[in-house]
């Protein structure tokens, strides 16, 4: 009767669509990730919309659109209202990513899927956790513990560990095992033998060139273009891999003392870097160390200039430059505009550092061979002028009037409905409780009444005559006079926080106002678009700077984690199938790769119960130490504890414990044994077939290696053969010494 676990993908299986999965643990529904793509296609979210209201908690793993893009929409339109958990950087950078997405869209279209307010309110409900913080859920999720762990890839990136009754469910996607400039890699040791591992097949087929070679090619390519007088465009995400690229460039520029300009251009560039500077505790060891010892903040950028609108880029000194601009998909944002401008010049270079999302301009350009020309839509928001403006204003006026009319009608209705019956019941009972109300409250009430008197005053049918509101002054008296409430006389605390924080109440204010001003301006404007065909003459290069583990590492990490059950998601059908076959053969027998909305039950068929180990029993147990484990054989009798109905194990009284088959515990490596025997003066050598010839006659063999299933090796079969002689017993003794006998 293990913990019941079900996994239902809502988006992103057998393809590279955004990630979103439903994981139910004992009927507590987790939504892990809530991604959307750069097309913001609501049809992708249909499966989510069907379950949104049932969700009890949301876990976010990375601060990019693919992992959290749908959150504002789901919260405002799909009825998602569960508490959300993420790390601080995922929260903060995710928020900035969504701002950037919104602003990029709003600049070129009448984007109305969600508003900035939706983004704010969605992110407001995020509970922030730190790495390895065990957060105990309460209420419906009582007994469930969630903990984020380091995942690499993006700043704040998270592998989620959900624990119930000692069984772990691990959600690990997009992780990176390598240490990078600003991030630590995943620590696979923290997840050993979980009941369920949910991971992705995204990179199962890819292989990465060595990092140094890749870095060199990357920088060489850039420098060559710059030296040839061309510009380099790096389409990047808002606050993800861009950080790593910035560090690479910054470091290289400082090393070579290059004079070319580097710009980081997103709507939120400066605040992104401001926040990133304060996230040192989330970054890699080397960054933290350099700060601790020399107080050098790696993100105190010296070469990279931060820009928040394109005008600044246009005003920049003419000459070759490197621009990192969002979005990576080239579908929107500054990168789109810059691409259109630069694509027709052969000297220029567009360098993709991540695989474009399916169906985006970036993906099209990454095709081999690259298209000669692409059709793009250039849109621009322009202020209304002339006739249009007049028309717009009139329309607005009309609307306003209509609204006013409606409002006043509504008010009348309301007045009739609320004050009518209230007064009819008993006009004398008017809030006696309110008699001590401070004057300002009374004032506003008074205003309310005046309003009624002016246009909504309808004498109640039962009242004899209209009357003014009347307050009864019912002060209490005792032997010493009027009873006073000491609180009334306390000098009010000057609430420091209120007086000083008037700078801005909105928690997530930090928008780059200048950039946003035009878009968010209430000035009437419209979107003008025109399609044009861009001749792609510039060079296009794709290099993998995604910071994900490659196929081989993923396989070895899965094997190391050795889950009892494995669920594969996210990745092309081919990659998913490949990884599934691989894991079936090498990792475990239970590998699932569900389709969208297909629920797989990965409840472990594990039986378990809890017992108390009584003091009497434990005092007789002799542990043998084996690495970090200590093992012992116990024979015990089940009993009940004194006060509560738990099982307890007591030592077997009187009758001797039934004999048991002895167990040899230990992991024998033939090579190690050979060395050990040699050190004991035994002549050893490997004979054919993996047999170890010891001395003259005795042979040792390990057979049945085929039982290597389930991650850790199964039961090893060792055969020792030889004639009756002294050597035989000696070697057997040595062999035994490699094991613990229980």
């Amino acid at each position, binding site marked *: 009767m293990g913990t019941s676990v079900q996994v239902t993908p809502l988006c992103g299986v057998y393809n590279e669509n955004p990630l979103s999965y439903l994981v139910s643990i004992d009927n507590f529904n987790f939504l892990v990730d809530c991604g959307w793509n750069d097309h913001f296609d609501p049809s992708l979210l249909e499966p989510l919309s069907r379950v949104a209201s049932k969700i009890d908690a949301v876990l976010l793993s990375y601060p990019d659109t693919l992992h959290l893009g749908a959150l504002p929409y789901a919260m405002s339109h799909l009825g998602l209202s569960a508490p959300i958990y993420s790390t601080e950087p995922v929260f903060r950078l995710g928020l900035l990513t969504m701002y950037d997405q919104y602003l990029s869209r709003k600049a070129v279209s009448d984007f109305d899927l969600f508003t900035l307010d939706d983004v704010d309110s969605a992110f407001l409900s995020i509970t922030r*956790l*730190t790495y*390895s*913080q065990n957060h*105990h859920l309460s209420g419906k999720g009582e007994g469930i513990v969630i*903990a984020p762990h380091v995942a690499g890839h993006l700043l704040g990136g998270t592998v989620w560990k959900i624990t119930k009754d000692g069984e772990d469910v691990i959600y690990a996607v997009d992780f990176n095992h390598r240490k990078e400039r600003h991030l630590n890699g995943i620590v696979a040791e923290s997840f*050993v033998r979980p009941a369920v591992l949910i991971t992705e097949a995204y990179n199962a087929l890819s292989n990465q060139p060595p990092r140094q070679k890749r870095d060199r090619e990357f920088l060489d390519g850039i420098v060559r273009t710059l030296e040839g007088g061309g510009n380099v465009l790096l389409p990047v995400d808002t606050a993800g891999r861009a950080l790593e690229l910035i560090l690479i460039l910054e470091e290289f520029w400082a090393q070579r003392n290059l004079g070319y300009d580097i710009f980081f251009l997103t709507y939120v560039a400066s605040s992104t870097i401001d926040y990133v500077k*304060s*996230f*040192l*505790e989330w970054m890699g060891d080397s960054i*933290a160390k350099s*700060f*601790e010892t020399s*107080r050098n*903040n790696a993100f105190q950028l010296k070469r990279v200039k931060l820009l928040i609108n394109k005008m600044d880029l246009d005003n920049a000194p003419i000459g070759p430059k490197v621009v990192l601009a969002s979005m990576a998909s080239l579908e929107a944002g500054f990168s789109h505009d810059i691409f259109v401008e630069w694509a027709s010049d052969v000297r220029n270079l567009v360098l993709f550092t991540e695989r474009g999302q399916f169906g985006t301009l970036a993906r099209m350009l990454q095709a081999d061979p690259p298209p000669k020309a692409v059709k793009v839509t250039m849109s621009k928001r322009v202020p209304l002028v002339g006739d249009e403006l007049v028309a717009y204003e009139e329309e607005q006026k009309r609307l306003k009037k209509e609204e006013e009319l409606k409002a006043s009608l509504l008010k009348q209705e309301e007045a009739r409905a609320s004050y009518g019956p209230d007064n009819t019941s008993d006009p004398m009972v008017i809030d006696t409780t309110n008699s001590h109300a401070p004057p300002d409250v009374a004032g506003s009430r008074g205003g309310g009444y005046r309003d009624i008197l002016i246009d909504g005053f309808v004498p109640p049918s039962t009242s004899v005559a209209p009357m003014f509101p009347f307050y009864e002054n019912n002060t209490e008296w005792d032997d010493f006079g009027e009873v006073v409430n000491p609180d009334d006389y306390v000098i009010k605390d*000057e609430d*420091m926080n209120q007086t*000083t*924080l008037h700078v801005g109440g909105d928690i997530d204010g*930090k928008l780059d106002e200048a950039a946003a001003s035009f878009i968010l301006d209430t000035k009437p404007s419209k979107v003008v678009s025109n399609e044009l065909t861009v001749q792609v003459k510039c060079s296009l290069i794709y290099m993998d700077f995604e910071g994900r583990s490659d196929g081989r590492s993923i396989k070895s990490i899965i094997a190391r984690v050795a889950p*009892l059950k494995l669920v594969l998601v996210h990745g092309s059908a081919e990659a998913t199938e490949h990884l599934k076959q691989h894991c079936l053969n090498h990792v475990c027998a239970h590998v699932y790769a569900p389709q969208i909305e297909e629920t797989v039950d990965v409840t472990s068929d*594990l039986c*378990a*119960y809890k*017992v108390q*180990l009584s*003091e*009497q029993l434990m*005092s007789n*147990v002799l*542990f043998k130490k084996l*690495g970090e*484990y*200590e*093992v*012992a*054989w116990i*024979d015990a*009798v089940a009993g009940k504890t004194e006060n509560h109905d738990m*099982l307890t*194990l007591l030592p077997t009284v009187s009758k001797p414990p*039934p004999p048991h088959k002895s*167990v*040899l*515990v*230990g992991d*024998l490596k033939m090579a190690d044994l050979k060395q050990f025997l040699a050190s004991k003066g035994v002549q050893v050598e490997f004979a054919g077939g993996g047999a170890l010839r010891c001395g003259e006659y005795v042979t040792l063999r390990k057979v049945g290696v085929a039982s290597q299933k*389930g991650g*850790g090796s199964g*039961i*090893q*079969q060792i*055969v*020792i*053969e*030889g*004639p009756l002689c002294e050597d035989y017993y000696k070697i057997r003794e040595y062999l*035994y010494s490699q094991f613990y006998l*229980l």
Partner: protein
Amino acid sequence: MASTAQPASSLKRRDVPVTREGDQLTIIPLGAGSEVGRSCCYMTFKGKTVLFDCGIHPAYSGMSALPYFDEIDPSTIDVLLITHFHLDHAASLPYFLEKTTFRGKVFMTHPTKAIYKLLLTDYVKVSKVSIEDMLFDEQDINNSMDRIEVIDYHQTKEVNGIKFWCYTAGHVLGAAMFMVDIAGVRVLYTGDYSREEDRHLQAAEMPEFSPDICIIESTYGVQLHQPRHVREKRFTDVIHTTVSQGGRVLIPAFALGRAQELLLILDEYWSTHKELQNIPIYYASPLARKCMSVYQTYILAMNERIRNQFAHSNPFQFKFIQNLNSIDDFNDTGPCVVMASPGGLQSGLSRQLFDMWCADKKNSCVIPGYVVEGTLAKTIINEPKEVTLMNGLMAPLNMQVHYISFSAHADYAQTSAFLKELRPPNIVLVHGEANEMGRLKQKLITEFAADGNTKVLTPKNCQSVEMMFNSEKMAKTIGKLAEKTPEVGETVSGILVKKGFTYQIMAPEDLHVFSQLSTANITQRITIPFSGAFGVIKHPLEQIYESVESGTDEESGVPTLLVHKLVTVKQDSEKHISMHWAADPVSDMVSDSVVALVLNISRELPKVVIESEASKTEEENEKRAEKVIYALLVSMFGDVKRDENGKLVISVDGNVAKLDKQNGDVESEHEGLKEKVRTAFRRIQTAVNPIPPFAS
């Protein structure tokens, strides 16, 4: 967690003869026991040892400032946890790491680590002791940096089975309260903490679990603080009045910690008071300037308010505060506010300014924190008529002196509210003057210990406190073994696997599934020269073993014997027989006996075995067995008689036991004798009969 903490006296099962050594938790303050300074607290439980803090005593120098490290063996310490960067909590760390046998791990928060280095480097530079008295040098500090690991608030770490995590403590940037969990027993060490939120720091958090022991600071004992806004108002009012009358304000303060809070207050006050904005505020501390980047970076360790301000601009980038390197750069022309270290006005810039300004009654000196006995700052709080200047001359003290404490330690109200919510059964007071601590203890006892369930302890330095924890060990039975939950009285046998302090019971087959351990089977095959007939071996084996089965080998068709259901003996060729078996102690023994037997037979082969003996009747066998049993019992107990029911009556020292030979039942008044007879009989029986195979 199911563990319950009970002091030794209330243990119910005292008669249980088990060793309880492992259940004793010992706490020894090596410093800060009934004193303030050199915080260092040693704790050990179940062979795991934790040291909290590693400070120096500011009033002493050299070795005498260290905690009493010689009381303990540093090499046994697993983890050292530093709560915050103040000298009395962290400054002996380089010494401890570099000059002792300590080899464990050190943890502190990110901001603490960053400031620790700056602060100690500065400390080494300014401390004016001889080289011999130096506890450590800059190199030691740099070396120590590599050994310090960082921990974030709430992050759970595990070292050697010791689990620990920390909460915000509110005292200074990066200050932490550590919760340590060893085998389910939790200990909370507060370090210096404050439950009051201020301008930049969060209040100390309330841990979500109640600890079994709370080691808590008692600096302010039973005193109560003024509300914060009152203190702030007094502070700003004094400054405002002074500067608007053309006076100068001197604020002597320690460079780090509270100074940042004061700067925030001043910067904010200036920004809301336009009329003051042409009056300069100087902050004269190169060290603090260096640390400013730490404050500007670790915004996440501060409170919500600062984080929100950060959304607009970094609040630690002050608008109205200028840095001042030395008095030479200072242009003393008109009203100004200067914050300078040291806080005690012993020497340095704050003293130089004091000497310059003390005679003018327009000027003010605001002392913003705890001042140490014996310093000038302490003296002027009592407003003497005259003071001695640095050059030895006397000068009249005309400037106004204000003492407004911003010290972020918990007062009695906070301590008592904190403990009331936490409800720890054991409270250990540290970090407080003996008198203050005594008063606090009395008050806490009347408040909490009235029901007798709470103990309040105030150990002195090196005085150990011992507590017993009857830790209930819980195990989880998993896998095949757990397919059926046993009823009371049923037996459970399996491998108990312990990792850290968690226990699992499993079947041997499941070992590799649930742990990284693996099991092995060793098959042994041995060839013995034997030239006799194969059938000859069977009979002598039957005399020893109850089960000897004949058979034929499936592959070669040669005859085999399965001895004791464990060892297979097979005729390999005319000259050899082979044996194979799966290694385990019993099989090895059986195989050894078979080998011995076979060798024996080879030697004595000519002897003809009497066939008839094999067919001895059961009865005869039994009779013989009975005789043997009787004889053996007599040799053991002496007086053994047979009674009319065929039972054996054994008398030893007047105690009588009756033994039923058929089923081994023993009747006796005397428990000890009964048990002895029963065991003896059981052993004799196994000896006289052939060995039965296991019922496995």
